């Protein structure tokens, strides 16, 4: 494709190699909680992507749950308590 040829004239930084992708995949793999316990050298990109998707979904659910609880709690507390907490946190 001519577009690929024109892209290859750009600087070397724009070409992503397999190594860089593997590097990114392994970095992401380090962040995942389940796989961290088993030290597996060979990680398949598919597996990492799958685990990442489910982990992000579970984090979203957790934040959803926490925001529900926060919104309920905001009813019950008055603003003075919130400002006290804020000054406590900012120390």
């Amino acid at each position: 494709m001519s577009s690929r040829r024109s892209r290859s004239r750009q600087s070397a930084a724009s070409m992503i190699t397999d190594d860089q992708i593997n590097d990114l995949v392994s970095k992401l793999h380090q962040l995942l909680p389940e796989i961290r316990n088993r030290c597996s050298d060979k990680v398949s990109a598919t597996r990492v992507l799958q685990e990442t998707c489910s982990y992000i979904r579970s984090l979203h659910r957790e934040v959803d749950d926490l925001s529900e609880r926060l919104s309920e709690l905001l009813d019950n507390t008055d603003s003075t308590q919130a400002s006290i907490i804020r000054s406590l946190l900012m120390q």
Partner: protein
Amino acid sequence: MASSTLIPNPVTNNTDRARDSSKRRKRKKIQRQSSGNGRDQSSQNLNNSNEPISPWKSDVQQQLYSSKLLQALRQVRQSSATSIKPPRRGRAVHEAADRVLAVTAKGRTRWSRAILTNKLKLKFMRSNRKQRGMVATATGNSRLKKPRVSISRLKMKNLPAVQKKTRVLGGLVPGCRKQSLPVVLEEATDYIPALEMQVRAMTALVNLLSGGSSSTSVSGAGNLGHFSFSRPPPNL
């Protein structure tokens, strides 16, 4: 000898790339933390292999986020006293929390810019001023749309399975819906620690607001004890 320049200097156990990236992160950490902490971190980063790998794990970031979150939540409370019914309010709180997270990220990542520009887009689409919205996206996305990466010489990564999962993951991370694999991977690598910090901060906040006695327990939230009770609270 000429070959000596090719052999990486065996100062640390890390590889060249890891050393570069750890230097970059070390610089970022020193800029963000106080000087006392920075000195400790810089000495630790060279020797320990379990250095904190992202600024999202620092306490300073979490406290910054929590204070901004409190401000945003008070605004949400004031503006939604009667207008939003309870089922929606959780959603409003979640959106405010995401927005504060994006602000704390200082707009250095694609997902944080996408979260912030989404709010702008919604605001301006309502008043039908699409021009302003375009300017906002131009400043935020002009760099993003440049063909910065081209995937070449990938054998396995052209599999349809990988492509499909990339699309799914791109849909989960804000602003990465149609991005290529390396971009999505990089964004996810920053987004996940940010989400974890968001969970930690909101959990601590919930515990504080709902009594405070459970926040000193170390059961599943060891960070929380360090987070807000490292110093004795002042006499209120």
